[in-house]
């Protein structure tokens, strides 16, 4: 299965990004081949709707599951509409979270926060 994680760097030692919508990269880890691929987050520079655009990127990457510390409601709508399940990360290291997920140790992401639309004024 393909596991997506918002990431600060584009290598496997990366930490998990504190923001979903404005993460620098998305790590898409294939649990079968055990390979990670990194997608640039073009949404990070967006004036508004970053979460939505970022979620579109994750959907288009073919991810089955998303591991993230938090997620805004607009982004969550997109992720859930694509039947991608969301889990809450517990550790700083992306790899540690992936391992924990595969062992069934990550909780579901229950709290979706309201959007922070940083645009217009």
């Amino acid at each position: 299965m393909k596991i997506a994680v918002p990431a600060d760097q584009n290598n496997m030692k990366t930490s998990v990004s504190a923001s979903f919508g404005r993460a620098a990269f998305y790590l898409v880890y294939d649990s079968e081949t055990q390979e990670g691929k990194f997608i640039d987050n073009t949404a990070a520079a967006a004036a508004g709707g970053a979460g939505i655009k970022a979620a579109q990127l994750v959907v288009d990457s073919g991810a089955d599951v998303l591991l993230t510390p938090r997620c805004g409601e607009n982004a969550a709508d997109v992720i859930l509409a694509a039947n991608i399940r969301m889990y809450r990360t517990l550790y700083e290291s992306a790899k540690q979270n992936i391992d924990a997920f595969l062992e069934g140790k990550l909780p579901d992401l229950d709290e979706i926060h309201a959007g922070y639309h940083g645009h217009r004024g």
Partner: protein
Amino acid sequence: MKQLLILSGKGGTGKTTLASAFIKLSGARAYADCDVDAPNLHLITGWTAEPKRSDYYGLPVAEIDPDLCTGCDLCRQHCRFDSIESGETYRVLAFSCEGCGVCEYVCPAGAARMARQTSGELMLYRDEERVFSTARLKMGSGTSGLLVSEVKANMKEEAEDAPFAIIDGSPGIGCPVIASLSGVDMVLIVAEPSVSGISDMERIIRTAGTFGVQTAVCINKSNTNAVNAEKIKTFCKERGLPFVGEIPFDPCAVEAINDGKTIVDIDCISGVAAKGVYEQTMKLLFKEEGSKHYERKLQSEL
């Protein structure tokens, strides 16, 4: 990094005055001014060195090339923001343009195009110990929300290991306020005991509530209207909002500010009261860690 955001709803209640006092008292290593429409914090935080400046690009703005324009009027007809002026030459009113791209799409002559535009400037002050991030939005620009996000991102990037940050917010309940709420751990509302102040306080509390951020309230200039001050305290009690103290009106505060000092740099009643509010606020901010950090800091000061 724990983030404390100071908001008020109404303008002029004392956010910046109080933020500067908090920064002084806590020895904060990271702080930011998110009132990008009217930034003021830099005036009393005593920085002498020049900041690192970078351009901020908001949404692109449309422009019409008069050489290619055929005057077909399609752009003006489709613009929903009254941003295109017809006439001998067609031109875009840059200040009203929302950057939607419709004119570029409908233009048959390729004359209307979206162009990147500087809508403001980011400034980062730093020395060995502190980082101060601020910005100035160019007059009439929109996308203040994104600029606020960049001010905070700059601060976080430069001060990764600072245990907490103090953020001076902007008045209102709109875009820049919403953007400043992102990722903060606590909001301190500075309320003013006037009918207007109370009305505005209620609206900002409602806005902050939508984002589920822990909110506390203090009253500034509390003795200018004792009845209204009581109303605010009752309001907080009824809603279970922590009330962290009150600060009396103090003419010495004006003197201090105009001298480029904070109210805790001089001996005055508002400074003493601000210290009380600060202590209560920081206790709440570090509640989860059993106030360990805060107590350690307090210990080192005694």
